[in-house]
């Protein structure tokens, strides 16, 4: 008998033997698993993003079946998915609002540079070293930490600025945790207009470093209805409980154009959306 034949035979025999042992033990020590868990997991989006706070879709399915969590805690599920799962489990699910992430900064590479940062290309590292290279101490660092954290490829890095594509964003919140500047917020998807600035400094100070900053002129506040915009110090922001309509962008004519729709913000350079 040739050596190869012996080799194949012995490995085969060992494999079959071990397989039989495992099979027998698996029968003897079989654990009953709630079949609903498997079914719920099938109905879930299987993105395993962890946006619900559990280790993955399997873990979440377990929690849902044992009633430790409700289906609508899954940020990725569409309303239809949630309805299907709730129907399967015989419970009533509440309607939930779709949330998307917004990076509250419009400062691209054009922002004045205070120092050249040569370290590890990661926002958290950049923040540790004298708060990064850009002149604005509140804006996007542009090291793509959020973009890398996004399991859905919804964040594009363009000219050193993180831009969220709403169509791809499911609102799992991974990027929100990543940003060392706390620049990213989860907001209701129905809000179309955002203020792309996060710096609370005085308008003149901001304009020195960034031409796309909110100078606190309040044009948008006047153009909007009462309560749609909020003013905190020198920074205006959208009141997401009562968001203004998309028409506000035109009505307000923001002088620095930091007030704009998310669509226009994410649109490819050169095209007018």
């Amino acid at each position, binding site marked *: 008998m040739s*050596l190869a034949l*012996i*080799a194949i035979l*012995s*490995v085969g025999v*060992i*494999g079959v033997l*071990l*397989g039989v*042992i*495992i099979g027998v*033990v*698996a029968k003897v*020590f*079989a*654990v009953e698993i709630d079949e609903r868990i498997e079914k719920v997991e099938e109905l879930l989006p299987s993105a395993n993003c962890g946006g619900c706070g559990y*280790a993955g879709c399997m873990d979440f399915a377990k929690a849902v079946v044992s009633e430790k969590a409700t289906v609508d805690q899954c940020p990725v599920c569409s309303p239809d998915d949630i309805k299907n799962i709730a129907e399967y489990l015989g419970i009533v699910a509440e309607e939930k609002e779709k949330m998307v992430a917004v990076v509250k900064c419009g400062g691209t590479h054009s922002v004045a540079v205070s120092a050249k940062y040569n370290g590890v290309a990661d926002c958290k590292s950049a923040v*540790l070293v004298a708060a990064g290279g850009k002149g604005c101490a509140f804006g996007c660092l542009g090291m793509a930490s959020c973009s890398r954290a996004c399991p859905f490829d919804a964040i594009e890095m363009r000219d050193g600025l993180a831009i969220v594509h709403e169509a791809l964003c499911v609102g799992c919140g991974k990027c929100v945790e990543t940003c060392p500047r706390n620049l990213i917020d989860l907001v209701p998807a129905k809000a179309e207009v955002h203020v792309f600035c996060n710096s609370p400094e005085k308008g003149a100070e901001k304009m020195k470093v960034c031409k796309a900053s909110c100078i606190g002129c309040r044009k948008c506040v006047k153009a909007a209805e009462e309560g749609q915009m909020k003013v905190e110090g020198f920074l205006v922001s959208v009141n997401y409980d009562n968001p203004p309509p998309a028409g506000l962008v035109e009505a307000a004519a923001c002088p620095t154009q930091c007030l704009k729709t998310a669509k226009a913000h994410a649109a490819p350079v050169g095209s007018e959306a």
Partner: protein
Amino acid sequence: MLSEFLVITVGAILVNNFVLSKFLGICPFLGVSKKLDTALGMSGAVVFVMTLASLVSSLINSFLLVPMKLEFLQTLVFIVVIASLVQLVEIILQKLSAKLYDSLGIFLPLITTNCAVLGCVVLNAKSAPDSIQSTWYGATIYGFCSAVGFSLALVLFSSLREKLDLANVPKAFEGTAISLVTAGILAMAFLGFSGLV
């Protein structure tokens, strides 16, 4: 005979500790050492898998692979043996202690690829033919002692890390950084045992 066993025991646990001087099995050493409970559970699983893997692999090696001149199959067969043993542990553990099963999580199936287990088995197979380690009982004892050494390192380290959680660590050193520094110091401390056997 007895002194040979003693040498294996002391050697595997203290002098040539798998984690701290051979640098094998670093992944679970850093991954499951956040809490003492989990570390103890992991240690139990590794002791079980490593002892059994050493016994079974040594038997297969000395009664099948060596006589048939199939030594080139060692790595392949050993990995198959280890993988099935881990599968067994997983099935049994899920039935007997669901809590431990949950807390070990992904690290239990990852024992399959734990280089400490394969390393131990390969060291047994490659040991000198006249040494006690090449017999099946010697190999089993070596496997058991290596696993105990691994457990010792894991338990020591997880106790240290539990204390470190409460300590006021400089910001730049928080988390993984201080853990790696601690592991390095622990390894240096174990260097003191060299020359014991």
